[in-house]
C-alpha cells in the first residue's frame, strides 16, 4: 500500500484479505493493485493457481465462496494471454478481490479452477473458445459458443474472420 493515502472501507478489507494470501504464498503472488473499482493481484507462478484458489475459498478469514466472473484477455504486446477472476465472499465476509493469471500466447496453459468453483467450468470454456489458452485439469475443455469446427479465436486482437463456413460466405 502507498503511504499517506486514505483507502475506502471496502479497499481496506480487500487489502486485509490480500495480506493473508501474500503471507502464505510469498513471492508466488505480485503486489496488490489498490485501485478503488477492482483491487487485484497477479499470480506470478501459475502452477500454484489451483492451490491459491482453494486457499481463498477455504481459509476462515477469506471465504471467497463466489466466483462472480472469469474473463479472458489478450496482451499481444507482451505475447501473453490471461484471465481475470472476480471473487466475492457473498453473505459471509462481504469482501472482494480480483486475480489475474497469465500464460504464453501460443500454446500457453493455465491450471483450471473448475474443481474449486463450478462456475469456472463454463467460464473457462468461454475463455478457451474466444482466446485459445488451455486449462489443464478442466473436465470438458471444448468450445462453448462457436461451433466445434470454427477456425481461430475471435476475441484475439489479430483475429481475421474465416472466408467461408460450411460453404456460406462469412464476411459482409
Amino acid at each position, binding site marked *: 500500500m502507498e503511504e499517506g493515502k486514505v483507502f475506502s472501507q471496502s479497499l481496506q478489507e480487500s487489502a486485509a484479505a490480500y495480506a493473508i494470501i501474500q503471507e502464505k504464498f510469498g513471492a508466488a503472488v505480485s503486489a496488490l493493485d489498490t485501485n478503488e473499482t477492482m483491487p487485484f493481484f497477479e499470480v506470478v507462478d501459475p502452477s500454484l493457481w489451483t492451490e491459491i484458489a482453494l486457499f481463498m475459498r477455504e481459509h476462515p478469514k477469506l471465504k471467497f465462496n463466489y466466483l462472480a466472473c472469469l474473463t479472458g484477455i489478450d496482451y499481444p504486446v507482451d505475447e501473453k494471454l490471461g484471465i481475470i477472476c472476480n471473487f466475492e465472499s457473498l453473505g459471509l465476509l462481504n469482501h472482494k478481490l480480483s486475480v489475474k493469471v497469465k500464460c504464453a500466447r501460443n500454446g500457453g496453459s493455465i491450471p483450471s479452477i473448475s474443481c474449486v468453483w463450478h462456475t469456472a467450468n463454463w467460464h473457462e470454456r468461454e475463455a478457451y473458445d474466444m482466446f485459445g489458452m488451455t486449462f489443464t485439469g478442466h473436465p470438458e475443455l471444448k468450445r462453448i*459458443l462457436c*461451433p466445434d469446427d470454427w477456425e481461430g479465436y*475471435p476475441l484475439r486482437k489479430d483475429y481475421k*474472420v474465416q472466408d467461408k*463456413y460450411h460453404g*456460406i*460466405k462469412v464476411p*459482409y
Partner: protein
Amino acid sequence: MGLLDAGITQHNVLVTSVDNVLNWARLSSLWPMGFGLACCAIEMMATNASNYDLERFGIFPRSSPRQSDLMIVAGTVTMKMAERVVRLYEQMPEPRYVLSMGSCSNCGGPYWEHGYHVLKGVDRVIPVDVFVPGCPPRPESLIGGLMKVQELIRMEQIGISRADALKKLAEKSVDPRFIIEHERKVAGA
C-alpha cells in the same frame, strides 16, 4: 380486391376462377412457424398477441415446420443457426414463403462488420420473398410485410413460377406515401 369484397348475391352463387378461390383460401390462413431468434421475436410475439391480433388475418404460429406455410426469420441469424434455419426451411411443405424480419436477418444489421459469428443476410442461405426493415420493426411494419406476402399469394396462378408472381407484384406496387398523406388529411379535416 378480396373475394368477399365482391359481395355475394343471387342465392349465394359466386362465379370466379379456381386461382382466385385457391389463392383466397391460402392467403387467409397463412400459418407461420413459431420460432424467434432475437429481440425481433419479442416484437413478433407482441404482434401475435391481443393488441395487434394477427389471428384476424388467419395468421397464427404453428409449432412444427411441417404444418407451416410461412417462415418469419425474426432476429439475428448466427452462422451456427444458419444451417438449422436451412434444415427447418427444407422441412416445410411447398408452397412456402419466407419473410425476413429486421435488419439482422436482412443484412447483418449492427453486426455487419464486427459480428464474426453473424450471417450477413438470411438470403445467403434461403430464398426470401419479403424483407421488413427496422431494428426491430414495429408490429405495424410486420403486419405490412405479412400483407405483402398475402399480396404475393394473390398474384400467383396455376402454372406460373414464384419469380413471375414476384414480378407481377412489383409491377402492381403501390406507393403508400400518398395513401398515408391522404389519410392524414382526412383525419385532420
